[in-house]
Each structure stands twice: as C-alpha cells, then as structure tokens.
C-alpha cells in the first residue's frame, strides 16, 4: 500500500515537472522555486528565530499578537503595497490600504491587550 501511494506521489511530481519542461519554463521556474526556498530558509526563518529570542520573554498575549500581525501582513503584502494599480482600471486595488492596514493592526493590538488583561495571573 505504502509503495503504491509513493509511486502515485512520484508520478504526480514527474507529471508536474514534465509539464513545466514541456512549457519550456523549467529553468526560469526552478530559479523562482529554489529562490523562494532560499529566501525562506536563509532569510525569513533565521530572522524569525532572532526575533523569537528577543520576544521570547514578552507576555504571551503580545507574542500572539505579533504572530497574527506578522503573518497577516505577509499574506496581504502584495495587496497592501498596491503595486498592481493601473491607470485604465480604478476598480483594481481600489481601497486605501495604508489606512486599512493600520486599522487592522490596531484592532489586533487591542485584542492582544484585552487578552493580556483577561488572562494575566494576579
């Protein structure tokens, strides 16, 4: 059973790589594929580890708030940066993302403070 599933997985991988090769984009794709891996493993993750040593002793609520804020920011960064705006089409990226992101982060901060006040052990 295990071997069958492994073979199926390997077949999907070969199919995907074959498809990329057939499109003639394998090399350019591999640069992005590997580049993102390096960006995560060599830059982002060590950065988080360093940040972790700094905030490790901070209150739990603050750490939770920072996790939510940081990951939320990364997930929405392409939209918030609004680099994709176009003159011919104002319905693309139509909002005031700078203001909105401040509001969202302020709400996360408020929740973290509320959480801290409610859960702290006196």
């Amino acid at each position, binding site marked *: 059973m295990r071997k069958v599933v492994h073979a199926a*997985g390997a077949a999907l991988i070969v199919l*995907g*790589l074959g498809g990329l090769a057939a499109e003639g984009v394998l090399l350019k794709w591999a640069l992005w594929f590997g580049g993102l891996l390096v960006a995560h*493993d060599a830059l982002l993750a060590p950065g988080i580890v360093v940040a972790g040593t700094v905030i490790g002793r901070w209150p739990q609520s603050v750490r939770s708030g920072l996790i939510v804020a940081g990951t939320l920011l990364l*997930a929405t960064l392409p*939209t918030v940066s609004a680099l994709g705006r176009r003159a011919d089409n104002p319905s693309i990226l139509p909002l005031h993302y700078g203001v909105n992101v401040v509001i969202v982060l302020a709400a996360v901060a408020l929740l973290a403070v509320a959480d801290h006040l409610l859960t702290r052990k006196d």
Partner: protein
Amino acid sequence: MIFPDISTLSARFTSRLRSEQVAAKLGAWLGVSFTVAFATGLFSHFVQHPPTWLLWPSRPVNLYRVTQGLHVIGGIATVPLLLAKLWAVYPKLWQWPPFRSVGHAVERLCVLLLVAGALFQLVTGVLNIAYVYPWPFGFLQTHYWTAYVVFGALVIHVTNEWAKVRRSLWTRVEIPERRRFLFTVAAACGVTALVTAGETVTPLRSLAVLAPRDPRVGPQGVPVNRSAAAAGVVADPDYRLQVTGAVRTPLSLTYTDLVRMPQHTVHLPIACVEGWSVECEWTGVRLRDLLRSAGVAPDAFVTVESLEQRGGYRSSEVRPPHWNDPLTLLALQLNGQPLRLDHGFPVRLIAPNRPGALQTKWIKEVRVA
C-alpha cells in the same frame, strides 16, 4: 564570535512549542488546505480549458463562484499556517548528519519539493490576485503544473509521517503553551480570511479592507478585470452582431435589432478566476433564442468572439449545456442600465457557473461549429 558547530545546531532550538504534536496538527490542517486548493484549482483549470469530451454543467449557478472563492481566500488564509508549520519544523533543516541513507536523502528531497512548492504556490498566488507579476513566466501554466509537484510531494510526505499524525491528531494538546500557539495560528488564518473574504462573500464585504477588490467599486458599481482601454475597444456606430457558421439562417443584427428581441432579466454572479465575485442583474437576449432563430442544432458547439484584437480571452467556447440554459444571456444591460464600454458594450456574454474570463465582452460574432 564562535561559529556554531553545525552538527549540534538543530539541538540549539529550545522553544517547547516546536513539538511533534504541534507540527502534526499544523500539518494536518495544511494537508486539508492544500487538498482543497488542489481540487478547486484543477476544477477551475478544466473549466477554463475543457477537453473536447467534457460537457460541464451550467448548474449549480454559483458553483464556480464558491470553488474559486475557496481556492483564493483559502490560499491567502493558508499563509500564516504554512509559516507556522515551517517555523515548527525548522530545526529539522539542520539535522546532522544531513543524510543517513539513500532512502533518507530521497525523503528529504521530497520535503524540499513540498516546502519550496508550497511557498511557490502561495507567493505566486497572492501576488497574482494583487495584479503583480514579477516573474519571467506565465502564472497560469506554472501555478498549474507546480500544483502537481506539491500534491505529489504532499502525498508522499503524509504517507511517511502517517504514524506521527495518527499519534498526535486525536489526542488533546496537554501543554497550555502549545494549545495557545495552535489557537494563535488558527486566529491568524481566521483574521486573514476575515479581512479578504468579503471580496467574494457578499455579507462580509464591509470587512474586506485588505482585499484586492471591493465588489461595489467599478463602473456601474461592479469591478472590471479588463478595461475597454486595455482591450483597445472603442464604441462602433456601425456595430453588427453576426451569427455565422453551421446555421440555417446567418444573422446580422444591429444594436436596435437586439434591443427589440424578447428581453430577459437574470441574476447571475460575475466570478473572477482571481477570486472576487459579485451577483448582478443582467438584462438581454437569451443566447438560446438567438441560436434557435438562426436554426442551430441543440448539440452544437458555439464560439463567441470579441471586438478585441488581441488577448487570450478574446473569444470563448460556449458548449451545449451552457448555451441551452435559459439563464445564459447576451446581456445588453447591467443593474438596469445599458452596459458601459468597460463592461462589454454593446453586448456581452453572461452564463451561470462560468469563470469571469469566459464571460466574453464586446461580442461581435457568434460562430457555430
């Protein structure tokens, strides 16, 4: 500064949150998320590029809207989850010796494909919906083919880790710190979904403050993907709609002719492949009525062609289940007003359960095969 000994590096990560159980729980959630993304992604791909034998149905009306909303909003909400999982297993990257055997090396290669592939899918996905394309290849092909690589590697990884998943999944996390961490990650995913989902889930639209679209903003209060300016289309006073090909009576209709035909009003969503969607009121001529008056066989394949000169979506195929559906219109009005040029004036296609890219605008010809 003493350079750390790499052979003991992985033991120097001290956070108690990085446990097998935490990694297994996050992994199980990721497994669900990537499976949903894979399934909805394949659905979207084959709806847009159907093999000849595939007659996908025109109902349920909102099917594509729901699957693509799940794909995109689920994808955005997976970013915190993936980052948390990679954080939890990061010390394993530095395990020593790096390869204990050939089998172990192959296993790690699979993990490499899985991690890089997952990062690739999420990064290209969130950039693409924000209309940022910094890569030197087509998004569509690479996002599609990489999905197979990721899912294949995922299947292998899950098989290898199944014992740990089974051990951890149904047991309660006893250490409060770890429970809190998992809850925090879930909250991060939830908040991320909450501030974006409203671009497709209408009741949440006021909360969609970090979504690339507001379903209320655009010409006639409806977003547009490709403007008339971008498509190079201008209003033509001598406009005629041609119905040609395998027809008994070829038709050539002016805008006034179309307005004089029986008009129907339907409520259908425009559901973009990039994840936003909005239901609108459309008024126009049933494609079925038009094709019947031209004398078309009910099982014919039909192509609608745009005034656009270039672009991958200047024409689209309308197969029998869709053009026979009474909801499928050649729309002349949107929300009670004549279509603006950006929405496809004089005539655009609107059909149920169909991606926005195939709701062809500025139609000049209906060709029957």
